[in-house]
């Protein structure tokens, strides 16, 4: 099972964090700091896997973002790399050529996508199409639900 997933930039700014185990806020902060330090110090050609505490860390860099997952001893590291890649593909399809800014300004949507893809640290659906379809439907539902507002209201001027 995946214990947690982190997305952070090269400058050490956290963009997304999803924890699949109950951890105290303080411990979360400490672990994030520690991991960011370790991963950011790695050179480009190095192995994508490292051992940290009693977990295995699988990380991959996509443009300016590091996708970092912590998995347990018996999990398969190579398939975790594939899981990370699948998540990136989903983001890419959804945002249309995703970049870090998309994830910053639409972070809640990134979370929604992640929650449709993984649950409890495991994959929900192995078909990319069906995950994207579900998110699309959910977005539609959200739009229908939001009461119609005038343009002025939307901009906060009325």
């Amino acid at each position, binding site marked *: 099972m995946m214990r947690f997933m982190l997305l952070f930039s090269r400058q050490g700014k*956290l963009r997304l964090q999803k924890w699949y185990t109950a951890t105290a806020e303080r411990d979360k*902060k400490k672990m994030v700091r520690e991991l960011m330090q370790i991963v950011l110090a790695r050179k480009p050609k190095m192995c994508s896997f490292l051992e940290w505490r009693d977990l295995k860390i699988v990380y991959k860099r996509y443009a300016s973002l590091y996708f970092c997952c912590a998995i347990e001893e*018996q999990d398969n590291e190579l398939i975790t790399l594939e899981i990370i890649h699948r998540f990136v593909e989903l983001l890419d399809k959804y945002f249309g050529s995703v970049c870090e800014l998309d994830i910053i300004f639409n972070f*809640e949507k990134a979370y929604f996508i992640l929650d449709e893809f993984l649950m*409890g640290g495991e994959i*929900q659906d192995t*078909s990319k199409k069906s995950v994207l379809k579900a998110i699309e439907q959910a977005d539609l539902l959200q*739009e229908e639900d939001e009461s119609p507002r005038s343009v002025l209201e*939307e901009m906060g001027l009325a």
Partner: protein
Amino acid sequence: MSPSVPLQEMIRAIRSARTQCEERGVIQRECAAIRAQFRQTDNGGRSHNLAKLLYVHMLGYPAHFGQMECVRMIASPRYSEKRVGYLGAMMLLDEKQDASLLITNSIKNDLSHSNQYVQSLALCTLACMGSAEMCRDLAPEIDRLLRSSNSYIKKKAALCAVHIVRKVHELGELFVPSARSLLSEKNHGVLHGAVVLITELCERSPETLERFRKVSVPDLVQIMKGLVISGYSPDHDVAGVSDPFLQVRILRLLRILGRNNEAASDAMNDLLAQVATNTDSTKTVGNAVLYETVLSVLDIKSESGLRVLAVNILGRFLLNNDRNIRYIAMTSLQKIVSTDHNAVQRHRGTIVDCLKDQDASVKRRALELSLALVSASNIRSMMKELLIFLSSCPPELRAHAASGIFNAAERYAPSKRWHIDTILHVLTTAGGDVRDETVPNLIQLITNTSELHCYTVHKLYRALLTDISQQPLVQVACWCIGEYGDLLLKGECQETEAVQVTEDDVLDALEIVLQSHMSTPTTRGFALTATMKLSTRITDNVDRIRSIVSIYGSCIDVELQQRAVEYNALFKKYDHMRAAVLERMPVIQKNSLGQTNGELSEEPIKESQPGKVKQEEMALPQQPAGQNVYLTFHKLVCSTYLNQFKVFFMLLLASAPTVTVYEKNGVTLTLICERQSESGLTVTLTASNSTDSDISSFTLQAAVPKSVQLQMRAPSRDSLPAHGGAKLTQLVVLNNPNKVGLQNANRTVPTSLTSIKMS
């Protein structure tokens, strides 16, 4: 998708802040606005406000005041608000917060909502942060959803059930029937969820494992076959492999079901062979499936042909260009190196090459594997590689590498000279990272190799001249020069080229060590003792030695001062004894329990054995015994209560006539040892009490290293009357059948000792 304007405005504002202070200001203002909005009953922008708060939370600022808002939003009928509310719950609430219980009811309602996306939100939240209580409450609901006809809900319910089982193990029973039926689904998402659920159930309970083993193995094999043989399926294909995620999970479940079971392993043999041969290994995906297959093959009771196939796949991985794959291969080979040693030996060359890889993780794996692959036949070539590695290895691996090399050298050394050379090489390259017991080990090895004394002392002298910064090396060198200085001065040596060394040269070398700021106090102690020993081995410069020794009589370091004063006394008052005291040490028996002591003299030579001391290190009584004595009491920890106290000490190997091992607060404990046989020793413990009050329920317990057998006879009494009224004696019989020496004991001691307590 409609952009959330207020949210994006705020994000922009925060990002444009130029300093940390400015950012904090913006955030404080926003938080105040959000708090104000929360207090208002209802407005259209509730979800935007909560989203803003979540962003602020992600930056690391406190956001606990949003918890109640999350609870309220979850209860709202509007989907947009529910969505953000649940997201907030997953980010801000965890099972440790009280507010999390408040959402249990909302989740329960939403689980039966008519809209599947609302149900999905509830399931996701429960699987993410559901506490044990919530899980217990909602488990029946989840079970019901597992039987629904909607695959979208079924797959989520399966993963939610996994979380529930992880939190509350007993609830596993509840899900077994539904889990079984899910295996016949066609939908890959549901299948995947079902396999994960069954894996979790089998890992938790052996009975469930048995049940599934009987029933599900054929089904799983069938599903896998379908995936492997089937043609291209656009929905699930990843780079030519059909649904690798599902394949990996099924392989893992098969591994659990086939472990330790012949029948199940047989049933899956063909399938595993098929997967291993048919999977395309050019991309990572294929390798991921192959990796899982190899792990499964090696873990179940597979037939030998299949095992060979698996090891070959690992061998291919080792040659892969991708560093990740090489790392994976080595990790797997490590697991089987003890069982399939020969198969792994075939790939030794590649593994040794990986020692030179740039990546530290790969280096670490290669080191572990290389050490495991050392054997009598390849020791020379492997050691060459390992020593090269040691000279360039990253600092965090040095200690491990050094100790691994020592172990390997000890087990497979082809000759004594090679062994000594290897140890010296390690000490020169990584002297700072070797363990403490290396020095006494090496000394003992040297004394045992009497034919090489001349060679050793020459080599060490030369090493000393080059570099005195590596403390273990300097210590050994000083000791050898002290012991075998006469051989050094004789000049000729069979094994190495002769070099003319004068007495002054030797004394100069030792004095440099004594005076250098790089030398630790222990090292200086060695050097001083060596200088003293030379007084009987050289002829001309005894006066120089006398003066060195008297200078150190006023040294600030107490240990050196004591030694110097005693050596001075040896020169002055006891000069007639000097030759006898300082004569050559006899060969130290590695595996004996300790000899009976020789002449009692004031010889304070001790082989200091630094133990792993936890608290107080009690100053051990100076052992005025002969030279073959190993003093081995390591620590005494004491805490006193009124009339009872506990004393904690570890008895390793003792060999002295009567030793007072404890004398504090009026209680005295003495030890008398008698060697009974080759491997047996009896110890008589005597306790007496000179305080004014009686000590009741006084018991002694003893601790020994794992390989030594201990037998405690009944004590003579169990209380100690005051004023030394009567003594308590207890006999302890020790048997050391493996003739464990002190050095070995040092290695095993920290891990497994029972304790000596006096209570």
